[in-house]
């Protein structure tokens, strides 16, 4: 043993450090570099500890992030915490992670003057580019999965693996909920890769790490601004942000996959465009100077801001082009069915027996406030409920008013004054305080 161990060590140290495949060698090299950097380590820590901190803070207070989809349910189901985090991540988290991972990946070689060091080895530019791309992609996937697992664990451990009301008002059991939640995270991977590709493009094109990091955030901001305007679905579906909406269709009684499919194709198109462009820039580049000047250059940011503004203006003009996704008919149909489901659920929670197949006779009427009844924004829905009675008048009519905040992607949050449907919490049949399913209603409909 004593003679074998040193021999094995000697043999090990005489083995080539790299393998046969140059792309694999470049990939491992990039992973080693990324792993040694504080940013990557910090991101990993945030992805692991962040959801636990978020869940702990929510648990310590009575308030809820009710504006976020499933936000009102964070005290009732751990899975709601994971889905709320997924919603935040889709808006700002993924662009930030992608920017921090990919935005400095190429620009840092300019900052350290190391392009000439690595390009004069046995790897070609193609190998190095592919290695960097794969490393950024692998880390982006790893961090996304880490965040997914961590958020589910945080929710389940701190709140509990309880069932959750879906986006049609139906209770989903924990087992299926776990599957749907993890699947939703997985479906966001393509969008995450698209943002990473954008970061890489900014990094290669500007050779500036700060712009590389901010690039995806700029795209996300642009997406956010466009989401506020325009009634057409066309432009929205072409933005990377749509990739983080696709999973909503899984949480409805009648799942819809159209937006998911289109946003996946759009993500692939963004990835292809960014990767191709950045590769062409890198392939044709002459590596002249040793270091990039650290003197602040105001021209590049100004050009980027000008370009982004021009792009935003064009997209804003195009935002009304194409069929409207948010219509009064779609909203009325969705909220009417959902109101029926959550009312029955509320009755079950307070211990009343609800026969199988029971259904309310609901007539919804939705209108957009102070505007044409299409597009995202503030809506008002009145739900006329007809209750059967054994009198001369066969039906008694009662109405419930909901203030609806509708987004471009067909998702909405509807809230009614407590006078109509009670407060945010109520007592169930066992005397426990539970979330009132009628107080805030989340829903989504297919905009295609």
């Amino acid at each position, binding site marked *: 043993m004593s003679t074998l161990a040193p021999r094995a060590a000697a043999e090990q140290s*005489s083995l*080539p*450090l790299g393998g046969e495949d140059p792309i694999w060698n470049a990939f491992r090299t990039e992973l080693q570099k990324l792993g040694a*950097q504080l940013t990557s380590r910090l991101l990993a820590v945030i992805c692991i500890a962040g959801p636990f901190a978020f869940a702990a803070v929510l648990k310590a207070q009575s308030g809820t992030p009710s504006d976020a989809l499933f936000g009102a349910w964070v005290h009732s189901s751990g899975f709601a915490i994971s889905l709320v985090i997924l919603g935040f991540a889709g808006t700002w988290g993924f662009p930030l992670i992608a920017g921090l991972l990919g935005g400095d990946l190429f620009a840092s070689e300019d900052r*350290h003057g190391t392009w*000439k060091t*690595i390009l004069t080895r*046995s790897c070609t530019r193609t190998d190095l580019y592919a290695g960097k791309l794969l490393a950024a992609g692998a880390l982006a996937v790893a961090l996304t999965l880490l965040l997914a697992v961590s958020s589910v664990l945080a929710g389940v451990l701190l709140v509990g693996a309880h069932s959750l009301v879906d986006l049609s008002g139906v209770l989903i059991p924990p087992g299926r909920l776990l599957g749907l939640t993890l699947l939703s995270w997985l479906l966001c991977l393509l969008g995450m890769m698209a943002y990473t590709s954008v970061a890489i493009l900014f990094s290669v094109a500007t050779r500036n790490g700060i712009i590389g990091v901010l690039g995806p955030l700029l795209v996300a901001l642009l997406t956010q601004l466009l989401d506020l305007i325009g009634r057409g679905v066309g432009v929205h579906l072409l933005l990377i942000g749509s990739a983080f909406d696709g999973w909503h269709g899984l949480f409805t009684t009648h799942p819809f996959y159209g937006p998911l499919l289109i946003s996946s194709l759009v993500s692939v198109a963004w990835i292809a465009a960014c990767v191709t462009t950045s590769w062409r820039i890198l392939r044709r580049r002459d590596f*002249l100077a040793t270091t990039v000047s650290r003197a602040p250059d105001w021209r590049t940011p100004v050009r980027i801001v000008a370009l982004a503004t021009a792009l935003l203006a064009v997209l804003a003009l195009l935002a009304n082009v194409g069929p409207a996704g948010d219509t009064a008919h779609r909203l009325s149909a969705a909220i009417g069915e959902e109101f029926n489901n959550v009312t029955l659920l509320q009755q079950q929670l307070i211990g009343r027996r609800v026969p199988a197949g029971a259904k309310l006779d609901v007539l919804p009427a939705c209108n957009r406030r102070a505007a044409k009844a299409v597009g995202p924004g503030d809506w008002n829905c009145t739900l006329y409920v007809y209750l059967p009675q054994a009198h001369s008048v066969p039906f008694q009519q009662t109405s419930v008013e909901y203030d609806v905040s509708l987004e471009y992607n067909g998702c909405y949050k509807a809230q009614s004054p407590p006078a109509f449907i009670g407060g945010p919490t109520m007592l169930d049949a066992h005397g426990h305080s539970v979330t009132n399913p009628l107080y805030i209603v989340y829903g989504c409909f297919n905009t295609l």
Partner: protein
Amino acid sequence: MDAVRATGLDKRYGTTTAVDGVDLAVAPGQVRGLLGPNGAGKTTLLRMLFGLIHPDAGSVELLGRPLDGLGGGALEEVGGFVEEPAFYPYLSGRANLTLLARLDAGPSATAVERALARVGLERRGEDRVAGYSTGMRQRLGLAAALLRSPRLLLLDEPTSGLDPGGTRTVAALVRELATEGVAVLLCSHQIGALERVCDAYTVLREGRVVWDGSAAELVAQAPASAYALATSDDEQALRIAAEQVGVRAGRSTRGELALAVHEGCLDAFVFALGDARVAIRRLDLLVSPLEAMFFALTSDGAPLAELEPVELAETVLAGAER
């Protein structure tokens, strides 16, 4: 087969011509010095040889393999660096070499240790490069070049930032590698450092090759070398110099004697001084044949051969200081 064969290399940036129709060849075992004033195109040429810059015209073959401009396979067994070596400051010297060894696929951990030891960095291998001095980075650059057991070394100012001991070590290392058959292209503005190690020279000016040949040819063609002379009788020395073939002498503004001596003419002058019982107290080489040739080829002023010795020395030294 030449280790480097560059033919008709051109590189232009807008209206500026950085490299203009350069042909260059380095044979195995040869140490070729690449000389030129600032802006002559040395670094651009070196970057083109490494595939970092795409030439507008011309072709490059390294060790018989054509360079396609994307590096990689054509750079197998080619080591070196251009301008000052650069590494990842947040990694240790050893980690940097390990990373480069992985990109090369071939070298082992043992090779990394060997390379570190060869440049005297074995004890500082675990330190982060951020804490390295310029000289240590230069040594690490050499280690990175040697890591892949090169058959061709392209080195840009390899002694820059090194102390005199380090400079001598590098010179000895280059000669040692050349005797092993390694072809070396050495780019430096420290002409003295090149003079001791190069077998051949290529001189660039404004992107063009203005001289190319062996060290012996250069010495033979070089204009007069310049010396500072102090004797027991300077007036007598001046008179003797005036009678000597290939020797011109004068007095500098500080009253010192300066000589311009053509190759092979110094010995006769020294013997003549001895015969006249004039003692030589100091004879310093101010301008070597290589330096004289370099400045003759790259200066814009009057031909050096026509200058007075004092002017020659002062012109050359002023040029060197620039």
